[in-house]
């Protein structure tokens, strides 16, 4: 099992589209050659298969792609929260933190060491 690269970042996003753009930029650092369209498809594919909410204000966004060479999890704290509508809960949530998981489908990673703290600890 390999240890995963876990990074904390702050981001300022005007809306969900702006967040997607920033995530695409992060993904390009871990997956050389990946396009914006491919990142968008990866995110949508995961979203279609299940709800990504981790708590009432934390959303998980997955980029799972064969082009990923450096498996990375980014704990993103947003300077301005945005609204997110959940199809699963049929209601709107205000998201202030995002967990961006950029991994290769064949990854052999161990569990995340900082996830629980990030989701549960409101001050981080």
């Amino acid at each position, binding site marked *: 099992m390999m240890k995963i690269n876990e990074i904390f970042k702050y981001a300022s996003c005007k809306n969900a589209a702006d967040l997607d753009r920033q995530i695409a930029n992060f993904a390009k650092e871990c997956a050389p050659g990946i396009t914006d369209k491919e990142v968008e498809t990866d995110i949508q594919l995961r979203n279609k298969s299940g709800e990504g*909410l981790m708590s009432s204000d934390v959303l998980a966004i997955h980029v799972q792609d064969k082009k990923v060479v450096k498996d990375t999890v980014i704990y993103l704290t947003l300077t301005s929260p945005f609204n997110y509508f959940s199809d699963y809960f049929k209601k709107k949530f205000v998201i202030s933190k995002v967990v961006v998981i950029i991994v290769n489908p064949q990854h052999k990673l161990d569990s995340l060491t900082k*996830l629980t703290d990030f989701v549960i600890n409101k001050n981080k």
Partner: protein
Amino acid sequence: MVIMRDSTRVNDLIYYLLNNSGFVKAEEIAAFLHVSKKTVYRLIKNINDGSKIPLISSQRGVGYKINYRHYMQFKQQNKIANNSLGNVSPVERRNRIMKQLLLISPQSIKESEAFGKYYVSSNVQSNDQHAMKSILKRYQINLVVKDGYIRVKGAELNIRNAIKELIDDREIVNLRQFIGNKDFDSKFDVRFVLKLIDKIEDQLQTSLPYPYNVNLFSHIYILISRLRKTGSKFNLKAESPKQDIDSNHSLYQISKNVVNDISNYLNLKLQKNEADSIFEYLISSRFDNDISKECISDEVSEITKELIDEVSKKMGRDFFSIQTSLEKHIQPLIKRLDNHIHVNNNLLEQIKIEYQDLFNIIKDVSKKVFISNNYGRPDDNEIGYITLYFAQALENQSAKLRVILMCATGIGTSELLRIKVKNTFPNFEVVGVTSNNDLSFQKGDADLIISTVRVSDKIPIPSVVVSAFFTRKDKEIVQRKVDELQGEHDENK
């Protein structure tokens, strides 16, 4: 031998003395038997002469007293049956008299008619009246004794409730047990009510389970007994449950049919609101199928949730899984509390012994929750039933279940789930955390997969999809699946 000749006077004299603990003067016995003092002396002499050991002892100037030990020996030697009314216990005697008076209320009967067959002295009679007064007061019923006549007076609903408490249906768990029960002595009425309950069940297309069937049976039997004794003169004065009728029209129609059938059976016109009281019994019952599933009110859900949360807190375990099943119990329970309908619980003593702590916690919590929601306090029988739901959950929790947690990557939401699942289902053993790309699992590797993403059909293990949030809704999804799996497991046993 005089006693073996079974003279009525001799028997009456013996029973009279048996029911008086002290010495009784010859004058009093003579007055009771409507004979002269001389006859009393002769009867006593004959009784004592007729047995090897004297049954009645006397004391000059004080009177006569039965020697109980000698009497019991004599009874045993001569195999005298213990079935006379003179031999009933004081409690049983008072209950029988109260039941008789309640059934004919507001009519009165002579005191001598009420007490005569029990062979009691005027002192015992006076004590009985005092005891009955205080018992009936609990039901807001008055015992009136005037000019040698005795009767009870009170609202019809109170009278029926008191009769219900006096008749002994506590041991009855199957309706057939009503046949031959001494408190339900009219075998025609018993058979008629049994047929009525069958008809109600046919119309409902389900069966009315214990204790609701026993309760409804007793209610209808008491109604018929009252109608037989007094006609339909009494006034029920019950408020019509209009709101409930509007939302349960089919149950109300069944109640009206029951009243029609009783009316035809007795050839007597019944008051319209008798259908209301039958209806109240029906809406206070839980049926074998879930016909009430769709209409659990928000209030019931909230009360159930409060109850579960409080008990969970005090027990240090999460009982959220019983929310749905307990709601279906609480819905008719609050109707019973509203309509002052009591149910028996023949398991109560056993529940109190086996689940003592749980029972006491639930009793404590229920008092708080129901009263704060403007309902009466459920009695021990009701607490016993609620306890069974929690006890069942405790037993289910003790069965280990092997689970795999799954998410898109096997490192994200499934990790969060691991903690939440463990907290909610302490009996789950997490045998793996994986991604939905992993198709290597085989049947038998785990009992259940809990996943935050769709699970491939290629994995031959039962699964549920939840959110990593793991809300009450998610927990219910898991619990339903667990119940389903355990049901299958039990069937395959």
